[in-house]
């Protein structure tokens, strides 16, 4: 795990991203444009994941936490 998160490994991953999306070949201003567009898209995706799925996610988590105590009764009470 430690090796995976060293800065040089992260830099290498970033280089792979650059090579696959061809931003390795772009001029600096094109790179700025491309990365800002990508970041905006990623943030938008995260926000909508939170906004739309948060409600379902919380009820799913409640179901999960009830299992260790009493598998059958508690689960049925939550689902009802």
């Amino acid at each position, binding site marked *: 795990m430690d090796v995976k998160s060293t800065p040089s490994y992260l830099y290498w991953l970033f280089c792979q991203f650059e090579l*696959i999306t*061809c931003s390795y*070949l772009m001029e600096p201003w094109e790179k700025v444009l491309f990365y800002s567009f990508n970041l905006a898209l990623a943030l938008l995706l995260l926000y909508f994941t939170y906004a739309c799925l948060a409600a379902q996610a919380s009820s799913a988590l409640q179901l999960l936490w009830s299992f260790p105590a009493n598998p059958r009764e508690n689960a049925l009470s939550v689902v009802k």
Partner: protein
Amino acid sequence: INHIVHNGGLYKRPFNEAFEETPMLVAVLTYVGYGVLTLFGYLRDFMRQWKIEKCQNATEREEQKDFVPLYQDFENFYNRNLYMRIRDSWNRPICSVPGAKVDMMERVSHDYNWTFTYTGRVIKDIINMGSYNYLGFAQNTGACQEAAAKVLSQYGAGVCSARQEMGNLDKHEELEKLVARFLGVESAMAYGMGFATNSMNIPALVGKGCLILSDELNHASLVLGARLSGATIRIFKHNNMQSLEKLLKDAIVHGQPRTRRPWKKILILVEGIYSMEGSIVRLPEVIALKKKYKSYLYLDEAHSIGALGPSGRGVVEYFGLNPEDVDVMMGTFTKSFGAAGGYIGGKKELIDYLRTYSHSAAYATSMSPPVVEQIITSVKCIMGEDGTTVGEARVQQLAENTRYFRRRLKEMGFIIYGNEDSPVVPLMLYMPAKIGAFGREMLKRNIGVVVVGFPATPIIESRARFCLSAAHTKEMLDTALKEINEVGDLLQLKYSRRRLVPLLDRPFDETTYEETED
């Protein structure tokens, strides 16, 4: 390996050819890369049109903007938006003899490859994995060079005439007799340029009313010659004998398109080694088909002469066949002999006809005398007639280098196309950014490679092509392999899934879509 049994025992040795399928993820990511570059290409074109950015490529003049646009097709779009970004990997100027090691002039670009300036420095001793120097005859020292220098001082450099006029030297006659003896044919004729040999002689052999069956991946010179001749051209799938047989059957049964008359001549155009795939033609099967359907065979041995066969006599010797079975044996002196030019060998009547009717003989200047002498000396060296075993040693060294290099690359996990015995080794890169990155990284590590993309290859199958040479020592190959390994890890090029997919030899019909079985 599995398909020797199917074709009646025509092969005396195993025919190991493999074209590993593109991994699905890699293909998808390649399209993603091209998609991004296309979008940015449109953006840059928009900016250039609305004068937001300076336009540095060729455009029409102001007065011509209302005419039919000249630069709107895909080739020009690709050229100014994709090719320009990685252009520094091509047209690199070298300043020494292209042997096993080469010197290159360093150049930089300050405006993203639109213009280049030379720094003045010369990068020395770059391991040359790109030159067609299969037997290592590209030298500026040695017997060939001394003989060529002597002939240069005797005959000069220019011939100043076409072959049919005053350009027929005694050296040319000597060369042609030697080439005929080398190939095992009755007679041969030599021309000044290898490309022109194909494009100028096919029109002399076939014309309207004839049929040409040409392989899918034939070289531009063969395609040009076929188109110039005016004959009907039909393409068969690359090295696929079922496809060729189907075309031959249809041609014999149906005849010419409207009149249903029989074809005057059917000519099959194949190459010995295909330089972009590294595959070797299935010559025993082609000859069997040719004899069965009574057609003619034109074999272009540009890359295979000198490089294949136990004594370097090409693909015919490699398969152990009779040279008289091939009607027209064409080859070039550029690759294995370190000179320039091409030859055609065959029966005496054929060559005498070509001496009169070939465009190249009538209009093109004949070969320069020092070049002729280089070829004569190198052919004698390969045949062993100069009294040494240097030629034989070179042929064996090339075969060893080929086997070693291919085996090591496969072990490392790269996708390598082509036959086990071909000295042309294409290494698949696929993604457009990796084409530029591979060329640059290898040059940083002092290895010169040739990377190829669209339009020489299909758009997603870009590759790096290594040409092995007898001049490469094992140390050079080991250095090169070490660097390729490093760059392969850096750029994540080791795509191979190491699954041995045998080539399918079942009958080809309209329901066969895939050549290989998963």
